[in-house]
C-alpha cells in the first residue's frame, strides 16, 4: 500500500517537474523546488531533496537533459531542460 502511494507521488512529481521546465525553461534543482512549492504545498513539504531522484530518473528515460552552469549565488549548478526531440515525438 505504501509503495502505491509513493509511486503515485513520484509520478505526480515527475509531471510537475516537466511542467515547470516547460513553462520556465532551463532550471536548476533549487529553482524547480521553489516553483513546485508555489504550485502545490504538500508534495514537497520538508523533503525537497526528492526532486533530484525524479530528475535523475527523467534524465535516464530521456525526457530531460542537463548541463552545468552558474547559480545566482555564483556556485556550480546543474541546469535541467526538456529534451525537445523526445517531447515532440510523443506529442507532448
Amino acid at each position, binding site marked *: 500500500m505504501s509503495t502505491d502511494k509513493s509511486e503515485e507521488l513520484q509520478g505526480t512529481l515527475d509531471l510537475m517537474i516537466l511542467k515547470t521546465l516547460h513553462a520556465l525553461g532551463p532550471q*536548476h534543482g533549487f529553482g524547480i523546488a521553489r516553483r513546485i512549492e508555489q504550485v502545490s504545498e504538500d508534495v514537497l513539504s520538508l523533503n525537497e531533496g526528492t526532486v533530484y531522484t525524479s530528475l535523475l530518473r527523467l534524465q535516464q528515460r530521456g525526457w530531460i537533459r542537463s548541463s552545468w552552469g552558474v547559480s545566482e*549565488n555564483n556556485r556550480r549548478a*546543474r541546469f535541467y531542460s526538456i529534451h525537445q526531440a523526445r517531447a515532440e515525438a510523443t506529442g507532448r
Partner: protein
Amino acid sequence: MVSWFLQLVSRVRGFFGQKVADCEFEDELRTHLQLLWNRFVDQGMPPEDAAVAARRQFGNLTVLRERQRETRTFLSPGVLVQDVRYALRQLRKSPGFTLTAVLTLAFGIGANTAIFTLVHAILLRSLPVADPSRLYRIGDLNDCCYYDGFENDNGDFDLFPYDLYLHLKQSAPEFEQLAAMQAGGSSFSVRSGSSTAKPLRAEYVSGNYFTTLGVGVYAGRPLLDSDDKPGAAPALVLSYQTWKADFVGEPGMVGSTIYVQTHPFTVTGIAPPGFYGDRVVSRPPDFWVPLANEPMIEGAGSSLEIQGEEDTAWLYLLGRVRSETNILSLQTKLSGALRQWMAPRPAFNAHGRAALIPRQHVVLAPGGGGIQKLQQYAGKGLRMLMILSSVVLLIACANIANLLLARSTTRRAEVAVRMALGAARRRIIRQILTESVLLSMIGGIAGLAVAYGLSRMILILAFPDARNMPVQTSPSLAVLGFAFLVSLLTGVTFGTAPAWLSSQAKPAEAMRGANRSTGDSSSLPQRALVVLQVAMSVVLLAGALLMTESLARLEHQKFGVATANRYVVQFDPQGAGYTVDRLPELYHQIEDRLSALPAAANVSLARYTPLDGSIWGTCVIQQGHPAPGPNDKCFSSWVRVSTKFLDSVGVPILLGRNFSAQDTQTSTPVVLVNQSFAQHFFPNQNPIGKHFGIVSPKNSGAFEIAGVFADFTDPRGEVTPLFLRPLAQRYAGYTDPEAISSEKSSMFVGSIIIQFTRPQQDAEAMVRRTLADIDSNLTVFHFVSYDSQVADNFRQDRLIARLTSLFGILALILASVGLYGVMSYFVARRTSEVGIRMALGATRWSVLSLVLRGALGQILAGLCLGVPAALYAGHLMTSFLYGVSGFAPFAFVGSTLILGICATIAGFIPAHRAASIDPMRALRTE
C-alpha cells in the same frame, strides 16, 4: 519500451564512473542547501537556525544519496560489498550462533542435496549416446527375464522373442535402427591367456546395438550386423571400465582371444569410457556379445533358437526413430504387427487363447534414459526421501528463523540507532537478508560435503555389489546449481520474517527502553515457528516408527527355512565346461568333499535356493486332465535339488517321505510338493501317490508325489505352489524338443548349500579351496552366509527405514533445540519481570509453572497440528509398509510421547533457570 531501454543503457553507463557522478551530485546538493540557507537568512532567521531549517526542508541526505546511487546503476556493488562485509563481521562477532546455524543448515541442505544427487544421477539422466531424444523403446514395463506366451493381463507386451523382433523390425521402417538386447543378464566365467577364470557380466545384443545407440568405440571396432549372423566368428566388445580393471588396460587386448564359458571369442573393440550400456544398473555388463552366439554359450538352454512350438520372449527392443515420426501411429502399427505375428501360433491361439489376442498391444516409451529398471525400483523410495528431507530442511529453516528473531530483538537497539542516523528501512531489510543468505550459503557449502558423504553412503548401502556403477556422487553442475538455489531459497525463507520485524522497529521507542520489556511483537512468530516445528517433527517421527516397525516385521518373518550356520555358494558348472553326462560325477564329488569338511552337516545342491529372488515356473497338468485354458491357474514354481536339500534348509516333511538314495534314473520319477501345491492341485485328497506332469497332457502321468513338505515363503511372506525334483532323475518321456532341452538344462544347478553344526570362521576359504581342488575351472560367483542372503532381500526397505529414522531424529533434535532456544531467550528477556514477581511474593513453583505453561502450550498446539498431518502421511506411505497399517496407533502414540518428553525437557531447563533467579540480583541488573 523506449524509455525503459534508455534507462537500461544509462544504468549500464552509470555503472562506470560512479566517483565522478557522486562528486557532481555532492556539488548539486551543496548548492541547493546553500540557496535554501540564503533564503532563510533573507527571511530573517539567525544563521544557525537557517542551517537546521535548510536541512529539514531538504530531507534525509543519506537516504537521498543512496537512492541516487541505486537509481544511477543496478544494485550498487559497493552497497552489496558493504552489506556482505557488515554481515560477515556480525557473524564473526557471535561464533556460537554462526556455528549452530551453519551446522543446522549443513544437515538440512546436505540431506536435500544428497537425495537430489541420486535423483539427478538415477532418475533424470540420459544415456551417454548420440541424440538420445530419438530413442524409443517398444514396451514400457520391466518384465524379466524369460516368458512364454502372453505377458500382462492388460495385453501390454514388453518382452519379445527373437522371431518377433525380426518381424517388428521388418514391419516398421520408421525405425532407422531397431536393436534387441537381453532383458536379464548373465554372469559368465571368462578366461584370458593362462590366468584363472573370472566371473564377468555379459549382455546379448543384436549386431546393430552400437549403431542404434550411435556409440563408437574407444579402440578397435564396435559389433556389426555381420557379427550377428549364424556362423559368424564369435566376437565381443569389452567395456572400458572392465578393460581397465580386469585386463589392466592391456593395449593388445583388441584382436586377442578370450574364453567365455570355454568358448573362444575375439575382442573386436573396447567401448568408449563412460558407456555403460542401455540402462543404469549397479553392475553394468562387462562385455556385449552378439545374439547369434547365444545358442553356442547357452547350449541346451538357448532362448534364441526356436525349440518346439513356443518362442521364448527374452529381449527388450530399443530403436532410433527417423525424425518427425508420429509416435502414436507407429505404436498402433507395431501393435497390429504384434497381433498379426501371434495369430497363427499355437502358443497364442490354442485352447481358447485366441480370444486374448485382440487386447495385445505395445506401448512406445521414450528410450533416451535407457531401460527404466533401476528408475522404477528406486524411484518411489527416492521421491519419498525427497519429501522427507525437505521437511527436515523446513524444520531447520524454522530453527534458524527463530535464532535470528531472537537475535534481531537483541539487536533492536542497534537497528534503532542506525535508523535514527538515517538508514533507510529498505537498506536495513536488505542488510538483514544479506546476512541470512550469506549464512545459508555458508551452510550450503558445508552441506555439499554432507551431501557427498550421505549420497555415497546411500549408494553403498543400497547396492553393496555395485561394480562400475554409472552413478556419480561427486557434485555435478546440476547438483551445485540445486544446492545454490536451495541455499538461496532457504536464506530468504528464514530471513524474511526477522528482517521485516526488525525494520518495523520504532527508533524512538526502542532507544527509550532498550532492554525493558515483558512481551514483544516478535514473540508470536517465534511461538508459531516452534508449533510448526513440533508438528513437522511428529510427522517425521511417526513415519520413522512406521518404517522401522515394517522393517522389523519383514526381517523377523517366519520364512519357514533355517538359515543359521548355513552358507550359499553360487557357481556355474556349465561355465567350467561340464556337459550333462559329466554332471552326476561332479555333484557327487562336491557333496562328498564338502561334507567331509570339519563340522559340516548337510550339503546340498539346488538350481535356486529359497529366498534368493529367482524362480522357475511352469504349468502343472494333473493326470488325466485336459490342457489348461488361458484362465486356469496352473502355475507352480519348481526347483531341481539334490537328495539332502530339505535337510540342509531345515524344512520338515509333513506327509509321505523325503528323497533318498533309492531315487535313481531307473526308479519311478518322484517329486516332493509343498502344502499349498497339495491344497491347490489336490484339494481334500491325499496327494501321496498322485501323478502330474508338465508341458502337455501326454506327459501328465510323469511324476509321482512321494511326499509333502512344509511351506516356506518368499521375502514378502507369500507362498506359491512349489515342487521339487531330484537331481538323480532326468525325465526321458518328452517328445517336444523344447521340453527335452529345458529338461536337460535343468540338470545344471547354480547353488550349493552347506550347513555346519556350529559357526565356522573360515568357511569361505575352506569351501573355495575344496572347490578349486575338485576342478580349478569352477568359478565361485558368490559366497554368502544364508543369513545375509535372506537379509539382502530387504536392503531397500532397510535403507529407507534407516534414512527415515535419521531424518526423524534430526527433526527431533532440531525441534528440541528450537524450543529450548526460544524458552531460554524468553527467560533471559523476562529476568527482571520474574524478579519483580518473586519480590512481590511469587513462589519458585509458580514461576516454574509460568514458564513451563508457555512451553507446554506450544508443544500441545504442535501436537494437535502434527497428529492429523502424520495420519495423512501414514496414509501416503501405505505402499511402503509391510504388515503395518499406515494408521497404526503405536506410531502416533509413540511419536507424540517421544516428542512430548524431549520437548518438555527442553522447556524445563530454562523454566528451572527462571525459578532460580535471585530477585535482588534480577532487579539490580536494570
